[in-house]
């Protein structure tokens, strides 16, 4: 009974996600880590390893490791799941890209890029970039699914994740 109550709005959301409005949003966050890029990439470059460094991710299960098309199901500490598919993986450039298939974040058409770059002094710069539309695809969105809510959610995911990543790698 409870399942069907949840399933109906999710079906509606999935249907509406097809016809999003025309204004895409973006968020970029970065952090400097006092460690060699290879050491940072060992964490970031594991598509199935986010539960090891993101405070909001309790569990991760990936279907095909770091191969293109691999789908990971993230179980969040606050409840809910996010399913994401690996779109690009370049361990030489230390860049990976993925796209959200479905999930509890108040966004649609969400795609993300994580990269590690070497900077002066043997340090690393980790950059996390996201492109997405708000959760409500039509005009006049409710406050919890408008542009601000979408930007706030993604910014929160990136900031808390990068902060924890820095402490995990540097410890």
């Amino acid at each position, binding site marked *: 009974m409870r399942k069907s109550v949840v399933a109906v709005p999710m079906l509606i959301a999935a249907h509406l996600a097809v*016809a999003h*409005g025309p204004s895409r949003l973006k968020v970029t966050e970065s952090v400097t880590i006092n460690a060699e890029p290879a050491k940072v990439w060992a964490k970031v470059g594991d598509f199935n390893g986010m539960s090891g460094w993101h405070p909001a991710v309790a569990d991760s299960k990936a279907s095909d490791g770091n191969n293109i098309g691999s789908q990971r199901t993230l179980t969040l500490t606050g409840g809910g799941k996010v399913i994401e598919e690996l779109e690009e993986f370049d361990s030489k450039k230390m860049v990976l890209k993925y796209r959200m298939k479905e999930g509890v974040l108040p966004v649609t058409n969400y*795609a993300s890029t994580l990269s590690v770059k070497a900077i002066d002094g043997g340090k690393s710069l980790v950059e996390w970039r996201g492109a997405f539309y708000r959760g409500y695809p039509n*005009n006049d969105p409710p406050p919890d699914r408008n542009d601000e809510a979408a930007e706030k959610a993604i910014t929160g995911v990136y900031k808390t994740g990068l902060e924890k990543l820095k402490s995990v790698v540097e410890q």
Partner: protein
Amino acid sequence: MTDMGKLRGWPKTRGQPNGPFSGQRALDEFSVPPGISPGRRDRRTRAFRRRIAGYFLLWAALCLGSVACAAPFAYITNQGSNDVSVIDLAQDRVVATIPVGKGPAGIAVHLASQRAYVSNPDSKNISVIDTIRNEVVATIPAGEGPVGIAVATNGRDVYLADWFSNVLLVIDTAALKVVSRIPVGSAPAGVAVNPISHDVYVANRDDNTVSVIDPNTRKVIQVIEVGDRPFSISVGRDGRRLYVVNVRSNDVSVLDAGTRRLVGKVNVGNTPYCAALSIDGRQLLVTNQHADTLSVIDTGSLKILHTVATGGFPEGIAVHGKRAYVVNWMDDNVSVIDMASYRTHATIATGRNSRGFGSFIGTP
């Protein structure tokens, strides 16, 4: 932005304002004053010379904005900063920033009428820019979600896809209002006009089709099946083919404009968005949004010739001469790519969330 002297590469003339009519002002200074005696030959000769100089300056003044002598400019819509960056392609720099409506996305430059039309989905209107003064001269309410925009070859009608209402709006540029609403497919996005047949094309994103509209009857005369989630359409100068970019199937559908049939398909990069043709029509350039690349396709063999790195989330693309201009949404800039070496010749910072969705330079 009124510094047209600098803008058009027009030499500054002593004591003249740098406005768009500086040529006209010069003409006035040279024209023959009234009351001159017609009987004196030397004066007449001088007057004749002045008149010739005047005609030259009149020609030059008209030339300032005309098709034949138009200096190249790119009009880049910046969805995040609600403005348009005007790039002087001779200098590779932004020479004006024009505030427009909210969330500007679509753009259509019409050189002959000196107008650029901008779709503003968030304020549900279009901004009409005078490209000589680089100012908004009109704002026209238009639909619920205006996106793709194109101008009729003669400049009289503007075609605008309304994403939320599933119609193509026709705007009369003299009356400055919507004069027709043509029902098309679901989530219409990109619009293009055939420069030879004048047919109008709309990509119906959620129907996986392209609607062909007769510009005279303003009726849909054909619906053509294309790839998965068609978003934008590009038509060559010879009007023979149209190229439809399919965002989800990562390919381009090639249609014959005469038979209105699918004649080919080219696989490109991840999440392609827009396309443009080289001046000679031999190459098709496609931006791949999620791959941060440009696919260069031979239009004869429909094979990929090159894959060129761009900035983040490349969207709009236009070609001028031997250079391609790629609008990078994620990086807020435009990559200028040399089409001989495929190297990035320059990177020009724009406003926030630049899109340039449409014909942002215009076709002479």
